[in-house]
């Protein structure tokens, strides 16, 4: 199920400027029945000022194709042709409060129809250089043809390069198998073969754990504790570092903080700050909890919990 914004739904249920404009002097047609998407844009342009007086659309397509067409006609009415040509597919999507990534190509179609209509008005020939193939990357709405052409034109050899050139595969990465297939095919045509890197990818830089010395770690932890101390003291509490053991940071809460409802919340917040300061994940644990681990006192052991 697509997640359509309210605006998309609104434009779909009550499209603006549906139908052909009477006395149109510019017509742009893109898509085809076979792709399941076709758009005819008709414009009435004032020859004196090149201003778009009226725009109408006829669409064969899905809900977002209809909404995108409707939005486009609203956006460009009143603009000059040159202004209208500046409208990007992202503008159309923004006007609709966003389109699901899988549906971005619907807004692309609107922009192309506009280019075709302007070319038609100016007596130029507009060639549809956007030959659409099967959608490979849903996150960025990139189709097979575009990936294939980009690989050929730039001699791409790896998935990473395809991501950099086309964005395809730069999101959830679920389409990498498809991208690899296209790479294998295209490289195979020229007698090369696709050589994937190992399955595992290098760690993102931020995940690389800096190896701080123990003293350095403790110093950073103290700095974080010093920064939260004034807030705690205002509520008549305090916090003290007891021990650091690997990724466990033991602290003692004092005064009003002890047993206070907010203690857990406070510790969570401090934990996040310390983790950030150290560049590694640590867990902040009340020192009493550790004492309880080692002592086997059954009396205090069971705390009711969901």
């Amino acid at each position, binding site marked *: 199920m697509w997640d359509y914004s309210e605006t998309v739904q609104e434009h779909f249920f009550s499209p603006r400027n549906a139908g052909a404009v009477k006395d149109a002097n510019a017509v742009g047609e893109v898509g085809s029945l076979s792709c399941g998407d076709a758009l005819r844009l008709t414009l009435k342009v004032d020859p004196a000022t090149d201003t778009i007086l009226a725009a109408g659309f006829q669409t064969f397509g899905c809900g977002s194709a209809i909404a995108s067409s409707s939005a486009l006609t609203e956006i460009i009415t009143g603009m000059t042709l040159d202004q209208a040509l500046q409208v990007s597919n992202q503008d159309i999507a923004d006007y609709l409060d966003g389109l699901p990534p899988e549906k971005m190509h619907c807004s692309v179609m609107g922009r192309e129809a506009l280019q075709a209509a302007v070319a038609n008005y100016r007596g130029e020939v507009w060639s549809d250089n956007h030959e659409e193939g099967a959608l490979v990357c849903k996150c960025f709405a990139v189709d097979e043809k575009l990936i294939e052409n980009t690989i050929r034109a730039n001699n791409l050899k790896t998935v990473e390069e395809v991501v950099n050139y086309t964005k395809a595969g730069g999101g959830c990465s679920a389409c990498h198998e498809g991208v690899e297939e296209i790479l294998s095919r295209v490289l195979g045509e020229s007698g090369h073969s696709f050589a994937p890197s190992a399955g595992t990818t290098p760690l993102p830089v931020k995940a690389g754990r800096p190896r701080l010395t123990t003293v350095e770690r403790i110093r950073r932890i103290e700095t974080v504790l010093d920064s939260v101390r004034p807030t705690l003291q205002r509520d008549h509490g305090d916090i003290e570092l007891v021990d650091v053991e690997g990724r466990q940071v033991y602290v003692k809460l004092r005064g009003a903080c002890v047993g206070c409802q907010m203690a857990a919340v406070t510790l969570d917040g401090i934990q996040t700050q310390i983790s950030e300061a150290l560049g590694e994940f640590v867990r902040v644990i009340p020192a009493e909890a550790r004492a309880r681990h080692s002592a086997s006192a059954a009396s205090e052991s*069971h705390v009711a919990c969901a």
Partner: protein
Amino acid sequence: MTATTPAIYFDNNATTQVAPEVVAAMLPYFSEQFGNPSSLHQFGNRVGQAIQHARTQVQALLGAEHDSEIIFTSCGTESDTTAMLSALKVQPERREIITTAVEHPAVLALCQQLAKEGYTVHYLPVDQRGRLDLATYAQLLSERVAVVSVMWANNETGTLFPVERMAELAKAAGVLFHTDAVQAVGKIPLDLKYSAIDMLSLSGHKLHAPKGIGVLYLRRNTRFRPLLRGGHQERGRRAGTENSAAIVALGTACAMALDALEHEQTAVRALRDRLEQGLLAAVPNCFVTGDPDHRLPNTCNIAFEYIEGEAILLLLNKLGIAASSGSACTSGSLEPSHVMRAMGIPYTAAHGTIRFSLSRYNTAEEVERVIEAVPPIVAQLRRLSPYWGETGPIVDPQQAFAPTYA
């Protein structure tokens, strides 16, 4: 079991009770919310949103960087299988696998099958306390290895393996790393975004969600080939119409587990420690197996020497106490569990290992009842044992009892 004493469930590593809140969350998805999440109409749409929400709840418990790294599957076993087979498919030229001798059968049996198909499987041995030797492991890592699969926590002993460190070593060697974290998820804090783990398996029924729902965590940009192909569900990485009720249930269970993590680390751990110390103090000739210093907070596995585990379980069961001897999957076999054998536990003890695994639904009172119940059972069985004399074990059991078969 008498009618007056309620049953005690200390077998939470086998499976857990579904939390009442989880049952409540999933029920609507059998009745009014029955839609197919892929459908365009409102019936499907709401279910799709509920699944999306559940995905973020799982993401939070795992500390995953992206919710799209969560792939719902049908169980832990499916996640393990998907991960391993995918790693082999994406690197057909790599013909070696590294795993451990103490994995769950979900990984072990698969590896045995792969060995028959021509792969070389390295089973890392463990020492008497169930620990791995990282130097041996590091030496095996090479560009011939397609995948390392090491469990995060052992289901029988609760022993934790240093999988984060092992994943870093694998990554440095350019080898994919998978961990079967079925026993770890919900019991210890995880933060995968700061790890080098490429794939991780979890199973709902170990953390108070229903059976038949699992997750494969797949780090973004990890090369992958699906096990099940078909519809576009889970972004084409696991086809099959979503088990929406169970997915919603798992999401709720993960959110509850995250809330209860602290409790698991403190209160459940204290119950387990009290149980363990109580039993060790009351029963002679028994010891804890595995690595007590690196262990799940809920698990305690005790070997009662010179007696047999199943007999202990049957007598415990009569008192309404549920525990287990080794993995539930290994019962039915006469051999002591592969985990005990891998640790070199002598046969006289390995046969008498009992696993007590607690959850946040257990109480201190239950622990005391079990501490009282076990010693007489052990004493009763030892009176029958040919390896046990008047006051203690027979010095050389092999000598004392060497039956000759006709």
